[in-house]
């Protein structure tokens, strides 16, 4: 949807700041109107309020996170803030027992979504994009979890995973026996159980996005490919998939960001402890946990920020590279 708009045409003609897009000469020749004083004021308010909200409650807090990560503070009085240099970071990297497990879990989360959940969503989309009977019904079923909050996903899967009364252990024949697995409680497997729950939601999301993407692929491309003797697999990987490049980027970014944002599921299960440590959960543990240590929590937040900036930058540069700065 990157069609050049009239706006960017006029931008190329070089109108100055605070000016309307240069009017098309054929319509009102020579009447490049400057904004009236009143229009400028209106525009100032229209831009000012949202920008103020965005700065005050998103970007300034983000910068304050960076600041606080270099301080020692118990969160009580502003006058208690003490400079701490990089002490918080050295503690996080070397002494904090939860940090490296959390990093591993975040990477695992990303890999699992990237290798299993996202391709599964793509597969479902490709299968459902064929004109098969009941396609809409299948789509609805796979889509339901997308509507649910991740917190609720955690609760619903908890019922399914329970040690003695859960369906899974019953299906495995281990319910009520000593061999019964506590899927969310056992620290060596609960991350996998949580990932399956996350996949339940993520795959449906990816499916919906790819279904829209597939419909946007020119059918004549596929026809041409099949006339040239390409089979379905070749057509998909050589023609259709590359043609969906814009959606692919979005999916990659969503997958990375979802794996960094993963929080709700593990917080519902056990507040991100005992095998379910995640960087995002550590931030909150240090904020609301006993013995508040704002500096250390902020150091975790900054690490999360730095990692997040990678996919965000990729996405923004892809999205805005065609626009004029």
């Amino acid at each position, binding site marked *: 949807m*990157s069609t050049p708009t009239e*706006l960017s045409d*006029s931008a190329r003609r070089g*109108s100055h*700041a605070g000016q*309307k*897009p240069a*009017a*098309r000469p054929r319509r*009102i020749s020579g009447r490049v109107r400057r904004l009236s004083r009143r229009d400028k004021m209106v525009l100032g308010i*229209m*831009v000012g309020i*949202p920008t103020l*909200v*965005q700065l005050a*409650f*998103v*970007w*300034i*807090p*983000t910068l304050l996170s960076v600041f*606080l990560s270099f301080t020692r503070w118990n*969160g009580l009085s502003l006058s208690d803030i003490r400079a701490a240099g990089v002490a918080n970071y050295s503690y996080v990297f070397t002494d904090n027992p939860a940090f490296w497990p959390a990093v591993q879990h975040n990477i695992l989360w990303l890999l699992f979504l990237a290798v299993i959940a996202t391709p599964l969503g793509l597969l*479902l989309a490709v299968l459902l994009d*064929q004109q*098969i009977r009941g396609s809409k019904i299948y789509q609805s079923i*796979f889509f*339901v979890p*997308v*509507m*649910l*909050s991740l*917190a609720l996903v955690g*609760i*619903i899967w*908890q019922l399914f995973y329970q040690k003695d*009364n859960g369906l899974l252990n019953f299906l495995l024949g281990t319910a009520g026996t000593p061999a019964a697995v506590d899927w969310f409680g056992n620290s060596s497997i609960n991350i996998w159980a949580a990932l399956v729950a996350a996949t*339940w939601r993520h795959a449906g999301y990816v499916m919906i996005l790819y279904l829209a*993407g597939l419909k946007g692929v020119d059918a004549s491309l596929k026809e041409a490919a099949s*006339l040239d003797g390409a089979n379905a697999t070749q057509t998909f990987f050589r023609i259709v998939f590359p043609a969906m490049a814009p959606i692919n980027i*979005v*999916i990659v*970014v*969503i997958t990375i960001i979802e794996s960094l*944002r993963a*929080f*709700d599921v593990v917080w*519902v299960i056990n507040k991100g402890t005992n095998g379910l440590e995640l960087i995002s959960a550590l931030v909150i543990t240090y*904020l609301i946990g006993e013995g508040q240590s*704002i500096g250390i929590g*902020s150091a975790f*937040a900054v690490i*999360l*920020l730095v990692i997040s900036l990678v*996919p*965000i930058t990729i996405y*923004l540069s892809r999205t805005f590279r065609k*626009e*004029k*700065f």
Partner: protein
Amino acid sequence: MSASTTTRPARPATGRTGHGRSRPHYGTHVFLTVMAVMWMVPLGWALFTALRPKADTDKYGYFSLGGAFNFDNFATAWTQGGFPRYFMNSLIITIPTIILVLLCSSMMAFAVSRVNWKFNITLLIMFTAGNLLPPQVLATPLFEMFKLIQLPYWFSDSGSLLNTYLSVIIANTAFQIGFCTFVLSNYMKALSADLTEAALVDGAGIWRQYVSIIMPLCRPAIAALATLELIFIYNDYFWPLLFIQSGDRLPVTTAINNLQGTFLSNYNLLAAGATITVIPTLVVYLVLQRHFVAGLTLGSSKG
């Protein structure tokens, strides 16, 4: 983008004949059916458990068909779990947030997409990036800021923004504006420049252009975003968890966490509670599915 989803070309049976293609679909159907059944199991299990009285599951076990099936657990969970209160809280938080988000983001989107000025793209990038941050990145300073903001006690019994609905509304609004601005600005950019030029000739000011020309044309996008935001904010677990300490002010999504404590080891009630919280989303899904899907794909189809 979204236009292409409606004008889907009828797929002619290319290559092989139409009937010849139906054979491979058996495998597809088997696979899809297996997946669909697996997909329904977790919710189905919750519903199944919720419909059975605790006494019967204790007697026959959770994996049985014995005993009664009724809605008693739902009634009990509804009253014991305090659901009317929680749903009210969700409403109090969700509705103002949606209005604020759409108002702010449509103004911003209008300014960056319909008027040419120096920093419009820079600001749009800032807004878009803001929405992509993990909320935990800004959680700590935001919490401390809200704690430091002094408010009169008639307004907030904590004396600060903490533990108020307003804190959650502000955080959600700030966080969602970016996404909606991005989507709406793309939508508005695609509208012809002639529209506002004509108005300009007639001497219509910026505000008139925004209210009476651009906004009415954006109705489909606004409807899609309103539906999407309704689900997003209803489903928001994090901000209330952070800001609201009083249990009776929590919205549904955050309160379900407490149900685990309230319905200690009564899985039937927990399942009923979980199912109750699904109902509003399912209603939205059934009534507004088209808008919801349109909203999701609007946000992603920018290439």
